[in-house]
């Protein structure tokens, strides 16, 4: 997507400047480290976008997409994944049962999610082939 990395890089650059001033002015290690973490997340995301597509650095409006897009409408697995994370965390307070149960549900839901994503890609492929 054209230009996607630009706001991240611009915002990351502002954070770098403010972090550098903080470093020079305060010299406080924990403050510099938290700043560096935020910069890393933002610049790292920009880098990931650029690696996915060089278009991410290009100015101007996005071009029309050539490929069809499949959009899921429901996902029981995503709900179960969310609940299992909740169960795992709840288990840290109320006992190992909830944690183990949560891990079990998480593994099952991730497996189901993988099946859903494969089915989505299959429908995109078949639509693309049908079009060509």
């Amino acid at each position: 997507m054209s230009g996607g990395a630009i706001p991240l890089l611009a915002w990351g650059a502002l954070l770098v400047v403010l972090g550098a001033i903080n470093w020079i002015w305060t010299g406080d290690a924990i403050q510099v480290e938290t700043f560096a973490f935020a910069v890393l997340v933002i610049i790292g995301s920009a880098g990931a976008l650029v690696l996915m597509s060089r278009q991410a650095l290009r100015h101007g409006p996005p071009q029309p997409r050539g490929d069809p897009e499949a959009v899921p409408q429901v996902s029981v697995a995503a709900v179960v994944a969310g609940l299992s994370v909740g169960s795992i965390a709840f288990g840290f307070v109320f006992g190992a049962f909830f944690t183990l149960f949560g891990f079990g549900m998480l593994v099952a839901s991730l497996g189901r999610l993988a099946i859903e994503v494969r089915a989505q890609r299959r429908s995109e492929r078949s639509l693309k082939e049908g079009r060509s």
Partner: protein
Amino acid sequence: MSTATSSVVRARRIPGWLGIATSTDHKRIGLNLGILSLLFFLVGGVLALLMRAQLASPNGHVVSDNTYAELFTMHGSTMIYLFVTPMAIAMAMYLVPLQIGAVSIAGPRIALTGFWIWLCGGLVMQSGWLTGDPGRDGWFSYIPLSDSTNTPGVGQDMWVVGVILAAAGLFVMAACVVGTILRHRAPGMSLMRMPVFTWTALVSVLMTVGSFPVLILVMVLLYIERQGGHIFIGFNGAIDYQDLFWFFGHPVVYVMFFPYLGAAAEAIAVSAHKRWFGYTFFVASMMLFSALSMSVWGHHMFTTGGVTNEYFAFTSTALVVPAGIEYFDMVATLIGGAIVLRTSMLFALGFFVQFLIGGLSGIFTGSPALDYHVNDSYFVIAHFHYTLFAGSVFGFFAGVYHWFPKVTGARLRESLGKLHFVLLAIGTNMTFFPMFILGQEGMTRRISRYPTHPGWATLNRIETAGSVVIALAIASFLANMWVSLRRRESAGEDPWLGHTLEWATSSPPPAHNFDRPLPPITSYAPLLDLREAAEDRARAGRGTPS
């Protein structure tokens, strides 16, 4: 003309409640998040009313000292982690894909997972009440107050776990909104053609992505500390905790502000029938505002002696520059506009006027010399309630009245809306303005009983009466929603002559947002462009000069 996407493969649907709970449609996730946030707002509001009942007299006996500590902790935590922040993300989740012409959100399944993680967090946090001992160390849970020696009991552990889950869920949903803006814009929708609200949402979610992991980290460390981990030891440990907490804690204030600023800006531009003034400067100021607000957290720690006050006073004061640009843009948009004072416009103006009081009092608290005087007093409570309640909540209601017709297809009643606005404006100022006076005179926060100094009881009674007026205002809003949804007045696609793409589709929008080609996108107000072009053509046809 461009289309939102080349084609869309539709999957099966599940009817009923299960369908609502498992839907990956960004509109449904945004609505679910918004409705549940609103319910948590009502819970937080009831807790606030109980606090105000206790403070109606100097030696109130409504609740015990310990229960009062639980009330202010759970009130603050509910409002911040479960209402204002998630509501901002909910608005972004619902509106951003529509405003940029996308058919869905990036990573819809991930967004749905994030919603459920957040909900688990909310339920775990609130179920602390069932243990009879919920969190009672404030929404920041400072060390050493919150360690297992000073706050034993499972309720505080549940609070910590609840915060971790809520923050993780919000982080995940924010990441999906970032991905949508950066990778799913419609053909023609360049960055500098994105609507004002989308820009405010973008900087908010960037701040969420950059700062919420630090909250998750510090809460995990607090949990380990409470299990005997010895992480935060002595004075330096307490300062390190505060440094880490406020690295999240101040940016989140702006996450709770920017989207509501965007909502108020959209309502003002549409109700003034004018383009938002100074768009480029506004975008630049948003970038600067959000970056600066990542670097001001130490002003919460001026009096600890553990931070370099000069640096944080400098960055905190520098915030007035981008804030000034936004106010200038707002006033310039109003000048010369054909203003219609509908309810959304009233709330938007209320947002800007009242946030000004919060912002100006922030200059006081951003100055170390003055902060030493007002620290831990009711002045600070007044300041942040003027930013977050008199500011953000008014911006939220501006957004509700502006976009309710788009979301439901029905209009909210204007008469009830204006009653809601008047009651809320009166109640808000009655409740929070006397706090400035009490704080200046030395009334400290987090106390359930206070000395009988002259005037203090009267001011506190005014505040309590104000909180009842706020409750009436919220009741009138709920009544308005009930009436408007029961006896629907059809709103049509574009009842306000909107400027942005969400008004170019049906109300409520179809499953994949747009069932027709999008209008040409040549600026941040494509529908206004179309209308102006049509007016120009009509004028040219009549032979009158433009």
